[in-house]
């Protein structure tokens, strides 16, 4: 047994309102750079729908993930080592940028600088790939809220695996949102696909990262990831992916997507697992057994034998403590309401989901029945084949039984808590009907409905003794265009020595203050100025003359800073 710790996430889909705040804050934090315009480390999909990139779940087409050979071993679906190297000059299964979407901006400058005329000036869309005019026909979230789904949703790979009549009536039936980030899998096929060995799983917390110095741009990881969450930066020629905001996690902060989640539906915490059993668990024959086999890999952090083994592996005591407090452990193993996304890819994903009960409740309520009555809901879960089958296609490789069990627990909680809220007797029989006790249901309710920040995000900090080692281990996002966005190295875009994240941020900030390409070069963009440092050039008019004191009547107040300082026009407040 080899005990390892994994930082993982659970999302409660019933609470997702599809506001995309997570996507936007993530993009602002990590991928607002040239070369990754089309990259969404976090995206929110409307389901049923085809997701982003289009139809990524169709592994017959994209060949992501693992498959089990007849001899019971795992092999990469897109081909093993020899096959990968033989395809290295042109990866046959790589999505083109147009399979994602062609990124664009608008010609905003025209709004201000168009010559006077009879018509209102228009900001035309301009491609960020070619710089030419373009007509926008697709983007990351084109089918939001089922928009246009009558045309597109038929190609939803999950729907296609269901029976014919479902596709016709689904639109009246249900809809929910599915936020997605990198799964930080226990058995990551992207890491296995990397010819350069540049992708790795961090020993300390299991976060999967790309070493930007070792990546050689072979692009096999993009194909290897069945969730299509490794992206190719077309400016630097290197792969980038969600880092689970490791600089925040290391200091005990939740990821940006979790921190900014409006519905508070995300949970972060540690799970202890047995690394020696991962390969065997991922290669069980029946796809329906993958959920249970992945659960069997997780180790009980309360078991004294496990604690001793974890200590022997060098896992610090406060990490074991965090694993015991982990909301993830409770949701996955104790209440068993969380399910993995597409376990049939055999990557052992570690971002799990609590499936939404709302499609069922909506149907029951629409029919005029009591949407909070346990028996009505139980009956509806058994009867409503379409949403349950669809959820099973997402979370359990098509096995409806675990989805039904999970939904029953959520229904029981809903009904049990209604009685309490109305001041009725606690009805233990409801709890018993899903194999729980009333006290357990109340605990689960607390965790799902009202858990505070510290309960949702149980993140042990990286250790001081590890801190120096962890600091700036080669990471996905140290760079954009080498030392600072403006200053490309001598070999075209993105060359030069390593730059610490902090320095890179400084350069980015500085160049963003003065650049808002492509339409208005040289203009000051105040929206991007954070108020620190020298004000952007052109913000204040030049002084009347050098050496003129700002406050001639009060030389003592301005002190030594008055006069012809090299720092230019700068108010005394801003220099403090």
């Amino acid at each position, binding site marked *: 047994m080899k005990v390892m710790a994994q930082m993982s996430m659970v999302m409660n889909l019933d609470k997702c309102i599809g506001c995309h705040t997570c996507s936007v804050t993530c993009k602002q934090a990590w991928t607002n750079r040239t070369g990754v315009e089309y990259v969404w480390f976090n995206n929110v999909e409307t389901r049923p729908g085809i997701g982003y990139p289009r139809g990524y779940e169709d592994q017959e087409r994209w060949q992501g993930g693992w498959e089990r050979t007849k001899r019971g071993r795992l092999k990469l679906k897109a081909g093993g*080592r*020899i096959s990968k*190297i033989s395809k*290295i*000059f*042109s*990866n046959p299964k*790589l*999505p*083109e*940028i147009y399979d994602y979407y062609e990124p664009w901006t608008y010609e905003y400058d025209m709004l201000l600088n168009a010559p006077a005329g009879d018509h209102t000036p228009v900001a035309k869309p301009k491609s960020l*790939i*070619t710089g*030419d005019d373009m007509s926008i026909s697709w983007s990351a979230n084109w089918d939001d809220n089922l928009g246009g789904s009558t045309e597109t949703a038929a190609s939803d790979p999950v729907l296609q695996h269901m029976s014919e009549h479902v596709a016709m009536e689904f639109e009246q039936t249900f809809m929910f949102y599915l936020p997605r980030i990198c799964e930080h899998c226990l*058995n*990551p096929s992207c*890491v*296995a696909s*990397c*010819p*350069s*060995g540049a*992708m*790795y*799983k*961090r*020993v*300390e917390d299991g976060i999967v990262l790309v*070493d930007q*110095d*070792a*990546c*050689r*741009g*072979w*692009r096999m990881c993009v194909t290897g990831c069945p969730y299509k969450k490794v992206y*190719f930066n*077309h*400016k630097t*020629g*290197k792969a980038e992916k969600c880092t689970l905001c490791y600089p925040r996690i290391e200091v005990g902060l939740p990821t940006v997507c979790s921190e900014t989640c409006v519905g508070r539906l995300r949970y972060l915490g540690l799970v202890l697992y047995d690394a020696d059993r991962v390969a065997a668990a991922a290669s069980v024959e029946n796809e329906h057994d993958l959920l249970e086999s992945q659960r069997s890999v997780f180790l009980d952090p309360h078991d004294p034998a496990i604690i001793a083994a974890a200590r022997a592996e060098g896992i610090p005591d406060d990490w074991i403590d965090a694993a015991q407090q982990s909301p993830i452990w409770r949701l996955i193993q104790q209440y068993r309401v969380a399910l993995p996304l597409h376990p049939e890819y055999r990557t052992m994903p570690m971002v799990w989901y609590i499936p939404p009960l709302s499609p069922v409740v909506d149907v029951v309520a629409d029919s005029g029945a009591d949407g909070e009555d346990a028996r009505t809901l139980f009956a509806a879960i058994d009867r409503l084949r379409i949403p349950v089958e669809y959820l099973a296609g997402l979370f359990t490789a098509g096995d409806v039984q675990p989805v039904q069990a999970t939904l029953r627990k959520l229904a029981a909680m809903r009904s049990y808590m209604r009685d309490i809220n109305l001041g009725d007797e606690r009805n233990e029989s409801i709890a018993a009907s899903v194999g729980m006790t009333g006290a357990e249901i109340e605990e689960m309710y607390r965790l799902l409905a009202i858990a505070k920040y510290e309960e949702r995000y149980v993140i042990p900090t990286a250790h001081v003794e*590890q801190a*120096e*080692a962890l*600091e*700036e*281990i*080669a990471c996905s996002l140290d760079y954009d265009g*080498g030392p600072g966005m403006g200053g490309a*190295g*001598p*070999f*075209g*875009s*993105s*060359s*030069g*020595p*390593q730059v610490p994240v902090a*320095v890179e941020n400084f350069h980015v900030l500085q160049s963003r203050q003065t650049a808002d390409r492509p339409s208005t070069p040289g203009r000051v963009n105040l929206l991007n100025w954070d108020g620190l440092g020298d004000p952007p050039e052109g913000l204040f008019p030049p002084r009347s003359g050098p050496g003129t004191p700002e406050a001639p009547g009060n030389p003592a107040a301005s002190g030594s800073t008055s006069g012809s300082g090299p720092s230019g026009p700068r108010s005394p407040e801003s220099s403090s």
Partner: protein
Amino acid sequence: MTPLDILLWVAFPYAAAAVFIVGHIWRYRYDKFGWTTRSSQVYENRLLRIGSPAFHLGILFVLIGHAVGLLVPAEWLEAIGISHEIYHIGATVLGTAAAVLTIGGLAILIYRRRTTGPVFLATTRMDKTMYVFLGATIAFGTAATVLYQVFGAGYEYRGTVGPWTRSLILFQPQPELMTEVPLAFQLHVLAATALFALWPFTRLVHVFSAPVGYLFRPYIVYRSGDGGRAARPARRGWEPMAPPEQRSRSRVGR
């Protein structure tokens, strides 16, 4: 032998070799982040799927052919029963096939690079320079083969260019071997030498990232902070933060 011969056939190759070796070491230390294939496949896939494998496989065969032709003495081959005639026919047939593959691939790739908007935009000045020298080397080499080996009587470069190459490697340069070589071969050699000097500063560095290690490593890579960047000394002024007592200890201790 004129000073120009010394310059072209001794000084220039050694200077290029020095730039090639030192340049690669420097580039690897200074610019690991820029060390990539800079693939443009995400912009355009259809032409690349034919052109890139054709060019790369062709150029690999060309490389093997050059290694045999230049580095292996003719007597050695004769000793294992490969006579001059067999070698000549083999080299011409295989070499022509490899050349067709290489030139066909390169033509497709250059056409694609010029006509596909996003690919052309992503082409740097260094790329263009590199293409000139790479194209010239291949063009002169093909011209020499076609003029002398396919349609001509056959030029025995294993008596001149081959020994000259080996003489450079053994640090006993014999520039006189090159003075009588036909112009097409001379130009081919000079263009190739220039390309070698340019090599470390272009995207051609990706040749040295051939992922051989992939065949032997375990699929899943685990890495801890210890093996990473922290092992290397920090640049002056960028030492990681540490409490004062540790800092003084490390300064004295290490």
